[in-house]
């Protein structure tokens, strides 16, 4: 290739990117996916951790079960969910739906982002649950007893004492997961293979390169992803830092 073909184009690629009809949806998908996975993994992780802390029987087995999704590689996890669980005709969820006489959901056609979010949340659940479980175990027993004597119900203890105690680990989970969730890729690749409703920034970069051979726009999208990551990290670190100081 001759040198002259590579002129400096200024911000043209960025303009191109921002005006690309795929860009804004991808940005939205990225943020929505992060929010969805954070909510599910922290919410469900907390519930599980509270259960596991109480559970007396089969604690070891339960813990193993909870941890195991963590060890499954993302593409494999996505394949399992796609073909065994969410498959609209023969999948497990479809079977459950049929038990109740409800028409099965075609997950990846009707709600691809939510479906992908569920898969990713399943993988991150163990991480959230384990961190919350360890902090629950470090919760001072005498504080709980003092609150009991003060007449606080289990719910009041959870609300006024346990949740504040879990603020730091939750902040850490939030930060760690957000960092990794910015770059979810395999789950999208294996299940929907893209499409406007489920493409995030990472996938957009990939598809710009692979299908449109547009390295310029892809790079611009990459830079935007880096900036986005930094902006989010900036706010996260501030928020987390504040909760660590408190």
């Amino acid at each position: 290739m001759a040198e002259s073909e590579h002129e400096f184009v200024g911000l043209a690629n960025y303009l191109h990117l921002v005006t690309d009809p795929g860009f804004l949806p991808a940005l939205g998908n990225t943020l929505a996916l992060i929010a969805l996975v954070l909510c599910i993994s922290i919410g469900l992780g907390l519930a599980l951790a509270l259960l596991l802390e109480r559970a007396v029987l089969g604690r070891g087995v339960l813990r193993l079960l909870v941890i195991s999704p963590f060890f499954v590689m993302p593409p494999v996890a996505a394949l399992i969910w796609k073909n065994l669980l969410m498959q609209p005709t023969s999948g497990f969820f479809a079977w459950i739906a049929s038990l109740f006489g409800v028409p099965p959901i075609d997950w990846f056609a009707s709600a691809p982002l939510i479906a992908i979010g569920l898969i990713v949340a399943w993988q991150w659940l163990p991480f959230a649950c384990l961190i919350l479980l360890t902090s629950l175990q470090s919760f001072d027993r005498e504080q709980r007893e003092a609150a009991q004597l003060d007449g606080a119900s289990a719910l009041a203890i959870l609300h006024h004492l346990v949740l504040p105690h879990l603020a730091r680990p939750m902040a850490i989970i939030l930060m760690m997961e957000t960092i990794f969730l910015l770059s979810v890729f395999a789950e999208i690749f294996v299940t929907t293979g893209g499409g406007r409703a489920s493409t995030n920034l990472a996938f957009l970069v990939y598809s710009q390169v692979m299908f449109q051979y547009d390295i310029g726009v892809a790079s611009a999208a990459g830079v935007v992803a880096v900036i986005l990551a930094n902006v989010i990290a900036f706010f996260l670190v501030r928020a987390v830092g504040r909760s660590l100081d408190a």
Partner: protein
Amino acid sequence: MSNIVLERVSKRFGDTLVTDNIDLVIPAGKFTVFVGPSGCGKTTLLRLIAGLEDIDQGRLLIDGADMGQTPPAARGLAMVFQSYALYPHMSVRANLGFALKVAHTPPRDIAARVEAVAKLLDLSALLDRKPAALSGGQRQRVAIGRALVREPKAFLFDEPLSNLDAALRSQMRIEIRRLQQDLGITAIYVTHDQAEAMTMADQIVVFREGRIEQVGAPLEIYRRPTNRFVAGFIGSPCMNFLSGARAAAFGATTIGFRPEHLRLDASGELRGVVRTVEHLGNEALVHVQLEDDTMITARCTEDTALHPGAPIAFTPDPASIHRFDQDNRALDVG
């Protein structure tokens, strides 16, 4: 003001009997101190009373009502924990008001009650701080305040002063006692420090290995211990014990006498050599090795010139000698 009665209360953890058939009356409005060596079950008994542990056998009555099925909060007792167990994320104000808040007391009443308690405990200037920003003594007072706010039937203290330095400890000792007397509230106070027990109690309960060894007023226990364990445990420095021929001369297996009941006497029958002298300023504690190698301690005035290695002789005050039989029971107390 409430009285608390324990009837044949037992508790086991696994195979170990932690409290064994405890019968005890804790009189209303009085300050009762549980004292005993580490691991003898004092905390466990306190937790049984509070309802934080379940009683295996026996009954617990508060004002005559059986507490077997009553949850901790409904017993109307307030506990001050050794670790204070303050709520770290809440301000002092919120800590003090927590019990009222979960009871859905109107905020105005909470504020008034919290202010009143804070004033009583000299915490008014600290109400907006978090527990982490308080000194040990201040935390201690917040812990007491948190118990006070609920106007409990009785106070339970589990070694509340053990984290404080000596000066603060004796100050808080007086403050707690004054507070209890002013409010006329029933209190149970756990400690393994016999000096704390002596100075604070209306009634002392001495425990050993899950059993009660003796119950009584401080001076009564000091003057008339019913067995050798209590005699040795209460009083500092510890009572001296002699056995063999010297005890047989008094018709006992063991005799005991306190360090302050030894009189320097060149012709005394207790002869030995000074080993160490502890100078306390107002008095000196002399550790003496007798001729048969038994060690005894004597309390002397500082102006007696004493040097390690010097010969020394004492006469014990015959009226203050405690006699014990072969089962270590006191012979003179009925």
